[in-house]
């Protein structure tokens, strides 16, 4: 019989907190982490707002207890920090006492450091060590090494749906019996590369992002890292783990429309959600809360809104938490998975900040205040460039096939 996929630990660092509790507290107190860029200089600094983690790289190095000589970049430091938090929260003493793995995601990789230092390589050989840290796989290896993991390590890079795909793959591997335990999630740091790139696509907002609002003008980039520990039924039983929630269903589909824009009727989103329901073996009306992708770009919110209306007879309470954290790219789905699990556990629907006017195309009004609600299933959407659409469904108790 196929194992259920239990979530036994979570770790997170984002613009609204360095622990799961800090993040929860900010969400229910409506305290967003959107501000102006401070950690590095940018010509766009006064024109954009971001979800920046107010900790310098030096502080992160100290927090992690890294030796002075290291090649961790901000992305891998954030990742190591959150992943270690998750492993600790799960009560794991020896990560390798069962078949274990790490599936991490990133889009920035070590770019945040290499873009700082590449001009100095010739005259300052001491920075050349970061060249090896540039590629996406390095951050995963660094995290695995920091955790002392000896098993399977993989890196997924599918833009803003990366972490959802990492969670999906991890869940699949547990269900099919390839692994007993897997740490899954993603990490991305802010960098000039992404700030400048997104600016040229003209989808950044110079104000606090307003998901699903008629006046929304774009997204705020953010940085974060978040990881979940997934374990099989057998490990949960043997170790007498407290299960936080289960990964009940998941789906991934391609919008097949455009490299970066979403289709008019949200086809990819609709198909991903449909598949997730089939996998979970539940009907849409059983979902109590949808944590939307909701980036606050004119395009996404319209497309996603349409997809929600297509799949739900009555759209349940929904919100985008990106008004708190910004859009954290490859980490987004993992950050929002943590929030989805918190919602389930504590019976609370988190608010969609900065909402004033419903979009004129349809009548969708997000939850604007935190509210207590008994929840059985929570759905989380993450849609990435390249048409990669992913949906995750979390449940309080496991569902069997």
């Amino acid at each position, binding site marked *: 019989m196929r194992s259920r996929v239990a979530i036994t630990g979570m770790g997170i660092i984002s613009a609204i907190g360095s622990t799961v509790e800090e993040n929860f507290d900010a969400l229910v107190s409506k305290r967003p982490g959107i501000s102006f860029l401070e950690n590095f200089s940018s010509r766009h600094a006064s024109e954009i707002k971001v979800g920046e983690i107010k900790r310098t790289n030096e502080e992160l190095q100290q927090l992690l207890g890294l030796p002075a000589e290291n090649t961790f970049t901000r992305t891998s430091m954030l990742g190591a920090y959150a992943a270690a938090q998750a492993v600790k929260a799960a009560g794991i003493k020896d990560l390798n006492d069962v078949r274990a793995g790490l599936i991490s995601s990133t889009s920035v990789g070590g770019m945040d450091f290499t873009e700082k230092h590449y001009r100095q390589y010739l005259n300052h050989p001491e920075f050349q060590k970061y060249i090896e840290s540039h590629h996406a796989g390095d951050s995963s290896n660094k995290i695995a090494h920091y955790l002392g993991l000896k098993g399977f390590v993989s890196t997924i890079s599918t833009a803003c749906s990366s972490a959802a795909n990492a969670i999906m793959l991890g869940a699949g591997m547990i269900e099919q019996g390839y692994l007993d335990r897997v740490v899954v999630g993603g990490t991305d740091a802010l960098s000039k590369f992404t700030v400048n790139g997104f600016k040229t696509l003209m989808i950044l907002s110079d104000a606090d992002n307003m998901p699903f609002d008629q006046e929304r003008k774009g997204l705020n980039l953010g940085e974060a890292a978040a990881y979940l520990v997934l374990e099989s039924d057998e490990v949960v039983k043997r170790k007498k783990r407290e299960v936080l929630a289960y990964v009940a269903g998941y789906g991934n589909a391609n919008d097949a429309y*455009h490299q970066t824009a979403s289709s008019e009727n949200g086809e990819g989103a609709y198909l991903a959600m449909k598949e997730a329901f089939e996998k979970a073996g539940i009907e849409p009306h059983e979902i109590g809360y949808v944590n939307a992708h909701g980036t606050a770009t004119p395009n996404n919110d319209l497309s996603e809104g349409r997809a929600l209306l297509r799949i739900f007879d009555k759209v349940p309470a929904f919100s985008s938490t990106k008004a708190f954290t910004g859009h954290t790219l490859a980490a987004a789905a993992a950050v929002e998975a943590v929030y989805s699990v918190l919602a389930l556990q504590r019976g609370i629907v988190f608010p969609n900040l900065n909402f004033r006017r419903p979009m004129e195309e349809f009548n969708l009004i997000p939850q604007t205040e935190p509210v207590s609600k008994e929840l059985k299933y929570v759905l989380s959407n993450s849609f990435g460039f390249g048409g990669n659409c992913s949906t995750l469904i979390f449940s309080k108790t496991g569902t069997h096939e």
Partner: protein
Amino acid sequence: MEALKQELKERIIEVLNLEDITPADIQDTEALFGDGLGLDSIDALELIVLLDKEYGIKLADPKQGKEIFQSVETMAQFIAENRTKL
């Protein structure tokens, strides 16, 4: 104005990688977007960069592009009136 339109057609072909098209293929008043040349939203953004780079015009709002980029004619008109680079 004719010289500007010719220049625009050459630049559009270059910047948007319109491989099998020559300036003679683009009519002055032909729709650039939609059915015309079949350009998309990223092409529109590239044209905004083109306005800045070659003609010194900065567009703050991408939605302005809809009017300006209707055709080579409307583009040339807009550039002639607003250029800060010669």
